[in-house]
């Protein structure tokens, strides 16, 4: 067993973990953050996407011990309890960018990364960037609508701010 300290959603957290414990299982079972979903366990579907030091990462292909000393952000970090939805989440609701909601947390984290790296991109680039997140429900059209709307909202918020 190993001692690790990780900053999870801004909060320093210490834990004792098995060296083979996946980050996805660590977050879901040890920390209780079940918003991160596991869809394939081979790094393909993107449902388990979280940020490690700000970069999108497959938590099902990462060991908990690998994030020792680093910052991990999950879907629960986007809108703290009691606060309004994050503009990306709000756009997903407004545009019906989710159905069953299972792939949604991973998608939101990929979109959050896109908003930071390429905030002015159009529909084709949005599709390219998000091609690593599989959604079986929506057929993607309304997700792309939602991402377009979210990027506009975030740009406007920046101008206003």
């Amino acid at each position: 067993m190993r001692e690790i300290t990780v900053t999870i959603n801004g909060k320093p957290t210490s834990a004792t973990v098995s060296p083979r414990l996946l980050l996805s299982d660590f977050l879901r079972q040890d920390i209780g953050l079940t918003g991160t979903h596991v869809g394939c366990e081979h790094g393909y579907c993107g449902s388990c996407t979280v940020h490690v030091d700000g970069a999108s990462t497959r938590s099902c292909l990462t060991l908990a011990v690998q994030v020792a000393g680093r910052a991990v952000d999950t879907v629960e970090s986007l809108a703290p309890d009691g606060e309004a939805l994050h503009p990306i989440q709000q756009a997903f609701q407004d545009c019906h960018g989710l159905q069953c909601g299972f792939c949604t947390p991973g998608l939101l984290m990929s979109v959050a990364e896109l908003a930071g790296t390429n905030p002015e991109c159009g529909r084709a680039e949005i599709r390219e960037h998000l091609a690593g997140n599989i959604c079986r429900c929506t057929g993607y059209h309304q997700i792309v609508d939602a991402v377009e709307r979210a990027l506009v909202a975030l740009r406007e918020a920046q101008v206003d701010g």
Partner: protein
Amino acid sequence: MAETEAPRFFGSRVSRVQDDRLLRGHGRYVADIELPRALAAKFVRSYEAHASVGDIDRDEAAEADGVSAVFVGSDFVESEIRCVSSYEGFQISAQPILAVDRVRFAGEAIAMVVADDEYLAEDAAEMVFADLSPLPVVLDLDAALEPSAEVLHDGWADNAYVRRAVKTPGFEAAVSGASHRVTIDLNNARHGAIPMENRACIADYDRGTQRFTLYTTTQIPHLIRAGLALAMDVPENRIRVIAPDVGGGFGVKAQLYTEEVACCLAARELGRPIKWVEDRREHFVAAHHSREHRHRVTGYFDDDGRIIALEADIRVDMGAYSVFPWTATMDNGMAMGILPGPYKIHEYSVTGTPVCTNKTPYGAYRGVARPAACFSIERLVDQIARHRGLDRAEVRRRNLLGPDDYPWHSPSGLVYDSGSLPESLESVLSLGGYEALLTQQVEARAQGRLFGIGIVAFTEQTAHTTQEFKQRGVPIVFGYETAKVRLDASGTAVVSASIHDHGQGLETTLAQIAADRLGLDLEQVRVEYGDTNQVAYGAGTFASRSAVLAGGAVTRAADDVVAILKQVAAHDLEAAIDDIVLETGRLSVKGSPNASVAISEICRLVYQRPERLPKGVESSLEASRTYDAEPGTGAYTNAAHLSTVEVDPMTGKTEVLSYAIVEDCGPMINPMIVEGQIFGGVAQGIGTALFEEFLYDENGQPLSSTFSDYLIPTMTDVPDFAVAHLETPSPFTIGGIKGMGEGGAIAPGAVIASAVEDALSHLGEPVVNELPLTPERVLAYIDEATAPGGPR
């Protein structure tokens, strides 16, 4: 409904009420649920497709770190899953919970390891050794019916679950009078629903009350309870099934699975909760497959391309066992019924054979047989157009059912309620820009590019109930859904429905209906579902039925509650009941605007001031109603799709360039949700058309068990969609509503095949008759088109 106003919510693009929790990561899926002292289960699965089972050595695994128990078939031999069709001659299969003496597909569970956590259970599962002696495998549905084929179940005469034939009395005469005929053979690859959430369940057993609680990823909680009761010989009142948030279903979560039974039995045996979370590789081999149809269809037609008669043979590879609750005849029955589709065909002869093979059992997947039926009839109509030298749109104009043909009694015995087929065809030609596309095609061909257009019109049988399922020979007839509406003392409503919402947005659309009928705001209505202890009996969510049937039941129950409100309000306001009018938030006396009372006040009186109630009125504001949309063969949504593709002549890769849909599902409760359902279905259909296929080697080893070798459409494989709606109400259903959950997935295989064939049609005339259109298959069609001495 607030009687003096237009509906406030029905027809609106209302945001979904469940989105907030799902977006925050606060959804509660089965894998998220932790019960105290729960153990983790891992199944050991057969690596052989067909083998006799000898000794299973479980000693080492049983001794391994953290292991509580290792179960094998003989431990659970009292239970099995049987689903028997009432069709004459149906051959019965019994699926063991864990294999006993024989395994019949690669992936069949042969042992179950229960340990402190998943990691330890997986470690120990590696230590279970089963002595499997291979038997001859049966992998092809035609070969399975050869007299020399190994028969897969004891006591069976051959590998046909059943053989059925239906013919209209005038068929032979019509055929002999027809001037032309075309026959085509069609293949649809085995593939599946593949929701993003794998299956999972947690079984808990209370020794004191001898009651089971099963949390499970299902679309049909009551039917799972019924199936568990049969499989374990336990009364239903000792079983509670809870389906919380479910991460997509599309049919694959609409069957009882052996793993659910195994977890219940292990929980009873060990006295601790048992949690099983499937991994994706298991899902590919052990969750039910679908879609593998082989059809031969013959169209008989006149000089003008008008179809006079249709003949078909339908074979479906149902895999190793008949599944609960559908039996192994579901796809066959649906295909036989719906094959004539949207066309005015009077004479029909069809034979059907569901076949048993050494493959994963076969269950429902969005569209159930309709994608294959649509593929067959639409490919046939395209060949008729080619034969008569007609435009593909024109041959459809000549054969589609027109507005005056309803109610249409189809040659297979269905009653189509209503539709707008010709209008939807013309609308999609205009929405998709058909005339301009024909010009674009000429230009593309001049540049040496392979550009094709596909057009399809179809009907989607939805919300079929008693009559339909009686004909299908299923042991449980899925006739109705139930809803209970209750107003509480604070004037808010709880709607409990027997359906399940796993993405379809029913939690919102049923609230829209209830809020309108009760004169409440959307926030004042909460919809609950999924827990058999909480909601009344019903079948669940499948077959595009929930909006129609649960929507109708909510309407009826809400109206009953409003009748009580009016009775109390009339007493309170000292007016006649007939003069009381429901408005938003209030009940008023007709013609006396000042005489009114808040709905919440009446609710308070009913529960908390019984002395102020009229004589004979009980302190209850609830009603439970069922709804079965008669005559029970369904409400028929119709649609037309138009797509363009470009085929790379070097690689054979097909790119979908555009996709237009005109859909008529009657009055839409929430157009935003309708569009989401259509788009999602079409994307799945693009998977059917281009990518998805469960492949096996010659020994029956699955070759498609990861997302690396089983491709499902990603964001770059699917284009933006163009969509338009028509709204022809059903004369058969409450509110005129028709179902529409499956339609999107029905047509894309046919549309894209039509487009690919069109893209190659200037080179030669191969008949595109096989899905998916992988690059290899498309290159073969190109070779066929361009071969020296080939068709042209």
